[in-house]
């Protein structure tokens, strides 16, 4: 997914629930509508949690990849 352009990168590797969600929220708040946030996490629960978070907030997970234990999410701010 290296071809995907992001406006900001957020490393949540090694962090556990609910920190990846909380840090993602803070990062998204600092961006403009339409911007892309790249977030990486190792918490296996973050896959379902990011989907639920996006569903409620209206921001969109445009891509999710998994490499080893690292999950990479590209989130588009609504």
């Amino acid at each position: 997914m290296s071809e995907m352009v992001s406006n900001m990168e957020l490393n949540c590797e090694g962090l556990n629930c609910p920190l990846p969600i909380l840090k993602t929220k803070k990062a998204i708040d600092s961006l403009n509508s339409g911007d892309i946030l790249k977030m990486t996490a190792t918490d296996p629960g973050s896959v379902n949690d990011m989907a639920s978070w996006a569903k409620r907030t209206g921001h969109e997970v445009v891509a999710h990849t998994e490499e080893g234990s690292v999950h990479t999410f590209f989130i588009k701010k609504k």
Partner: protein
Amino acid sequence: MSDTKKLAIIASQGTLDWGYPPFILASTAAAMDMEAVIFFTFYGLPLLKKEIDAKVSPHSNPAMPMKMPFGNKDFKSINWQIPNVISGNMPGFDSMATMMMKETFKQKGVATIEQLRSMCQEFGVRFIACQMTMEVFGFEKEEFIDGVEYGGAATFLEYAADADISLFI
């Protein structure tokens, strides 16, 4: 009418293990664009103190796994069966268990209660301290962090009446 979802939590326990859920849920709710209020009453009140001194007591939690935060993987996975006669009577046992739990949480990348509490405040979660319990247990406002509101059952219920999720923890 706004369609913002509302979460109402009563935090009634102040041990390390019971102290986490109110702050985890309220901060996450706020991160999901919900409104959240935590009403701190009885033993939940100390969670508002500037310095949180929450401990965990294995004696009161028979199902609590007792695992070491150090050593190799096999050693860490051993669940030590400690008889209640020891965990309930040995001086310092709770402090040791608390230290081990905190260390394990740290290793697993879990936030501290203080971190989650300050993120709650940053995200606009409202904290209400039960005025009656403060009188009964002799707590002063000066002992608590800034930004706390004070009220009673009616204050909480006025908000909770319109809440979509209400939890007693």
